[in-house]
């Protein structure tokens, strides 16, 4: 059901115009609760990134950003996840693992391509060993630009996503 709503909302890749300001906790909770019932679980998948994006995702859980206080958490298995946060251009040797991870994720399996190279291959575009971003391997619902996108930016994008879902806006 949720997947269906998302599909309607995000037709094709859509780049969010996100400000780098931090997120207001009250605002975020208000937006998240009706959609995800106070709990959004994210599985991060590195599909060949340079590792800068992973560190920004790790930073989301440090006390400065502390994404857990909103009910968002990064989990250890795709089986526990609502959303896959994929980084990297999808190196060919990670393609199979990425598909299998998506298969292991329960619905609504929202896919977010995080970082410039996850969007279209970025700096690695054209190399024999990479794909042209996550979208060329599995369907993508949302993209977050940046090289790497800063933690505040990733949070803002997630908030915007929830706002869009709540309002059924495209």
């Amino acid at each position, binding site marked *: 059901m949720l997947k269906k709503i998302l599909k309607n909302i995000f037709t094709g890749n859509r780049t969010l115009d996100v400000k780098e300001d931090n997120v207001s906790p009250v605002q975020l909770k208000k937006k998240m609760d009706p959609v995800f019932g106070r709990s959004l679980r994210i599985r991060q998948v590195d599909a060949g990134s340079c590792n800068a994006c992973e560190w920004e995702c790790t930073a989301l859980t440090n*006390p400065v950003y502390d994404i857990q206080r909103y009910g968002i958490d990064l989990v250890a298995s795709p089986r526990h996840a609502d959303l896959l946060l994929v980084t990297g251009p999808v190196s060919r*040797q990670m393609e199979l693992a990425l598909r299998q991870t998506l298969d292991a994720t329960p619905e609504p399996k929202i896919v977010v391509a995080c970082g410039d190279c996850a969007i279209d291959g970025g700096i690695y575009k054209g190399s024999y060993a990479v794909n042209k971003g996550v979208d060329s391997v599995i369907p993508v619902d949302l993209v977050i630009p940046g090289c790497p996108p800063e933690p505040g930016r990733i949070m803002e994008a997630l908030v915007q996503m929830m706002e869009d879902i709540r309002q059924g806006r495209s």
Partner: protein
Amino acid sequence: MPENERYIELEANRFRDHCIALYNSGRYYPRLMFAADLRQSNDCFRIYMVFSEKEKDIFHIPFFDLKENAPVYKSLTPDIPAVHWYEREIRDMFGLIPEGHPDLRRLVFHDSFPSDSYPLRKDWTISRTDLNEWGEGLIKKEAYKFMEVEGEGVHEIPVGPVHAGIIEPGHFRFSTVGETIFFLEPRLFYTHKGIEKHFEGMSFFDGVRLAERVSGTSSFSHSAAYCMAVERMADIEISEKAAAVRTMLLELERLYNHIGDIGNMCAGTGVAIGNTYGAVIKEDLLQFNKRLTGSRYLRGINIIGGVTSDVFLKADDILNTIDAVTVEYKKFMKMLLGTISHIERLENTGKLSKDIALRLGVTGVAARASGINDDIRKAHPHFLYDDLDFEPHTSGKCDVYARMMVRAEEVECSISIINALLENSYNGDLSSSVKTIPAGSSALGYTETPRGSVFYWVMSDSKGMPHRVKLRSPSFCNWPAVPFAVHGEIVPDFPLCNKSFNLSYSGSDM
């Protein structure tokens, strides 16, 4: 040609004897081995080996030529174990076969990559079907056989490539007896992005951006080494100011990595407060990086011929931030060293003997924690390191604790270097204008990343475009040492041992 690079052309057989003689003398460190396709100009492939002489700023670079119709040479691995991965890598990328190598399985390419296909050959092509089948990973074209441990009670645990934590992908196969790790075989190169080949398709100037994205948390060291290689090749002298900016930022990169790594080790021992404390100091430093350079990972500063921004204009911010970080860092270390449950887990865990570290050519923190006094900043001084007064920090304890303490001492060393750099003023333009790169020349570039030495070797073609860019990240040297460090440890200590090395998958997989 740069003064400290001594190239020696030899016959294939003489090359082997020469390298073994240098190695056995004990006065040289093997640094890297690589090949180049010179069939267009010299009708041959060329294999180079780079040694650096101890106590002297000299690179000895013997090389030999290999004809395309007889692409076989005698392996050096039985005599110089440190080259085992290089020879396999050269086999995968160029199809030059090291006869007598004890392990001729593919290193870089996984099962679905076509046989007899060598991407770094200049005339290499690959069909769309092959590429798709490679990605789908369903057809095994050259099966990889994992080493198997047999015997009563041996249990195999496969892990990865998608791990539980937010880390890079790699596959680990543990053979355990009870809880004890008897044997570990890592299968890496999931993040292989064809970076060396990709360098050949862009200009030397554009290559800086790619070098920054080889290994995310060593962006500055990688791009500095790359720029240095190109500048040495083109005989460009960078100004004192540019050298000072680079030295400063190399140390800032070391600072945030080392403090972050010490904090991460706490995740391996379940000391939550240590983990978060380290993460907060690291976050402070990343935000400071952003104020200073516009990028949390110090990207966009290096260019061929110098740097784009003068960080010394923000000397006040540097001074204040470093002072504040120093205070926090001291409290942090005091807390960790007073936490017995933490220290107890580190001591005598994950030992890597000096002998094995030397034989495998281990570099950086891992080498120094195993008693090897080697630091590229000292061994081959560059930028302003020759003017700075510091010593490499070593420890003879060889365990996880030693790797933490070497990092801790280096943090203090970096803080003093940063403060010392702020005491002087530096002359010259930020960058000198460079328009063209001389044809047919080559040079090395190198720096000490937070993980160890990184090397770039660049060669231009007849038009001054990249003919070959060889990059050797520290993780490529250190990965083979991890199985030795965890042998005999229990499975729950693997994450801790692994974090104490903190290797980059992307840097090693390229």
